């Protein structure tokens, strides 16, 4: 079995993995990073979204061996070491952008690169950015509000 070396949330891991092991299963069951969720395993729901080299990818559509030597961020890497919520996480709480919370990690990880590229998005931009993530609880209303609030929080903290 091949050996892979990855950096996840700034920590290095070396593991022997089966070539067919999905990246989502690797993160969840080999590394114990169970914050990344699996909803469909065919790349539609977006719950398993993680950052690979800073870009959002669906971890259920990749194999663990494909990320050998690369750097990943999962939802566990967003909050501060003391548990302080990332501004996007804080905005989700304030705007009630989550209910069951199962799709939430994937949505957060989709928004991290989106808000980096689009610091002042309008509602239409946000809805397009979220269109690859399914949520069955919120009707997206408060997710959109949370994304807007997160953008405000991050731009104001930058300009401050």
């Amino acid at each position, binding site marked *: 079995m091949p050996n892979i070396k990855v950096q996840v949330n700034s920590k290095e891991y070396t593991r022997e993995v*089966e070539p*067919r*092991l999905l990246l989502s299963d690797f993160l*969840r*069951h080999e590394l*114990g*990073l*169970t*914050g*990344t*969720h*699996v*909803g*469909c*395993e*065919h790349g*539609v*729901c977006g*719950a398993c979204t993680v950052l690979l080299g800073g870009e959002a990818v669906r971890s259920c559509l990749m194999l663990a061996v494909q990320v050998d030597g690369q750097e990943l961020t*999962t*939802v*566990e890497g*967003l*909050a501060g070491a003391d*548990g302080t*919520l990332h501004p996007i*996480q804080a905005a*989700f*709480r*304030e705007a*009630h952008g*989550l*209910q*069951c*919370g*199962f*799709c*939430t*990690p994937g949505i*957060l990880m989709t928004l991290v690169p989106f808000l980096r590229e689009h610091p002042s998005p309008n*509602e239409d931009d*946000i*809805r*397009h950015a*979220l*269109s*690859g*993530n*399914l*949520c*069955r*609880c*919120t*009707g*997206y*209303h*408060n*997710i*959109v509000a949370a994304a807007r609030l997160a953008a405000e929080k991050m731009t104001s903290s930058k300009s401050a």
Partner: protein
Amino acid sequence: MSTRQFGQRVLRTEDPRLLRGEALFIDDLSFPDMLHVAIVRSMHAHARLLRVDVAGVRAHPGVTAVYTADDLGALMKPGPVLVPPPPIPGSTFNARTQTPLAKGKLRFVGEPIAVIVASSRYVAEDAAELVVVDADPIDAVVDLDAALAPNAPLVHDDLPSNMAAHVAQRRGDYAKARESAARVIQRRFRYDRGAAAAIENRGVIANWDARTSELTVWDTTQAPIPVRNALASSFSLSESQVRVIAPYIGGGFGPKIMFYPEELLIPWIAMQLGRPIKWIEDRSENFVGTTQEREQIHDAEIAVDKDGRILGIRDSFLHDTGAYDPYGLTVPINAQCTLLGPYEVPAYESEFTVVFTNKTIVTPVRGAGRQHGVFVMERLLDFAAKELGLTAVEIRRRNYIPPNAFPYNYEILYQDMAPLTYDSGNYQPALEQAIKLVEYDRFVEEQPKLRAEGRHLGIGVVSYVEGTGIGPYEGARVRVDPNGSVTLATGVGTQGQGHFTSFAQIVADQLGLAPTDVRVVTGDTREMHWGTGTFASRGAVVAGSATHAAAMRVREKVVRLASELFEAAPDDIVLDGGRAYVRGSPSRAISLGELAQKANPLRGAVRPGTEPGLEATSYFGPERGSTANGVHAMVVEVDPETANVRILRYVVAHDCGNVINPLIVEGQIHGGVALGIGNAFYEKLSYDGNGQLTSASFMDYLLPTALEVPPIETVHIETPSPLNPLGMKGVGEAGAIPVAAAFAQAVENALARPGFEILEIPLSPSRLYELLEAARQEPRAR
């Protein structure tokens, strides 16, 4: 005193854990020595099952065990009827429930045939490929009308037909009402629902500890206590030997209330093998193996007088229950009763026939049949309004039950086995608020101008009621620990409704705390022995009322003890910020923790009859459900070339009695509306003539995304329920119920084509296009 928490937009206490990815969902659990399960399911909708050959599986490396029906012994018996049918005179109900694994016959695609236990899910799925299922296909029963034809193949060979049940209920004299009517309008409606499609699939993990003779099961269930009871009974264990834990659950929406074969098989296998066993459903399994809601076909007519007042309604409908009917009559009875809506209907004649088909089992999905009934009633009113030259708004206004008519008894039986009686309501304000918010008058004025510009905008305004908060009961236990922390335990499971916060608000108000000071435990049978589950929009109403009662009793204990210590009158004791003190003397306070210690002396004598600790358990069972109501209004734009529909405005005016937390209630409504939009225009469980589900993936079964669901504007009206002390009504399903009815009215209104009527749901751009073409070619035919 601290601010009252009830009614405040309190931020959810469960969120930080969920946002950091720390909340425990079922698939996050892992044990050393744990084995993994894959389930071999029927590929046939209807077949004789001749042989299941698992010889090749046993030899596969990594496989520990494989089970077929022949290996189950005493477990191989039909499952329970979870909800017995209400005692409606003259009704028939043929109970047919599934055995844990199929034997002799396969009745739907997805029915479990064999279970493989292996070192990993990957290995278990490899081995599943090696199972040889020898089956002889039979013509599948798919279409509802055809299912009842004399020579139809039988889903259950021992029954004379595919009729699962027949129920008739009536109020008044419809025939007489019809005779005196100015207009009688008759239509046939087809209303199909869909999958709940919670983003988290189901899962079960079980561990049998032979040393303590205790079975622990983690289960994505909405009803952990009934699951515990069923397991104890199946395995001849006492209920205290079985602990069922519903951890954080990634959405329920109804189907997780069922008791599925996997919930019996996984714990049984754990006991057989003495190892922790894990089964996590995948999305493909979820589409066929998790219950759904599907089609009803209604032949309905409404009799109205010349002013548009309803004189009576007659309805006869078919209801598809799938291959079995473990959930009794809940869904069709909801359709039958909810059809009446907020209107005075002096005469009602309604009968339904439940039909077995070779499809996945039907049990409640958010709304649970209410959508079907509301669609029929609202469409009938729309057509009646058109014939009489009234607006859709005016005909509704003329038919509401007046506010002084409550309690309003319809004299038929509801799903909770009590007479369908609305406890309270005030319907017209919801209508007026909704049309004000959606700017109805302005829209009506502008519509012709827009049409002249070639834009097809339409408006839909519909009403609904929802029977919520039904019995039998729930319990709650509140305890102050010696460290001052306060814990509330209740038996209902939680699937994202914010129970951790709203229940904490109720406790906080009684004990003078902040909601974050209250630790809420839900869905662990070790913490609360008694209860039924989360269904019928009842969590906040029933478990919330039990919570209120328990918290009040703990408050009494705290106050009594503090008044003794301070030698003050109980009325003068103030509870605030986790402390008790005599009014006016906050500096001389005692903490709740110290009081808890004093309430539990470890030496010395207590007064006879003293209960230890600051703890109380209370139960609440309403005499019947409380009825919530609301009005939805939407503005759509239809592109007549592509038949695509865009929702421009969505307004909800709703009344769920007193609101614990508006933030959470609005969220519930938003989500319900989104589900309703999916039901109206995007989601379809498409079965082919062989009973194969051809839309069994998220690429074919389209959940609405952020692009399809518009912003949703809400307004609250509060008519308190007299049936519980806090005046609450449920809201969990409300948002989903009237959406398709509003959608149909709005799309018709946008196109205003003669002969074009929407009599079916779901639509889609292509189906809407077909309907438009048909109306164009034959404008008057029907």
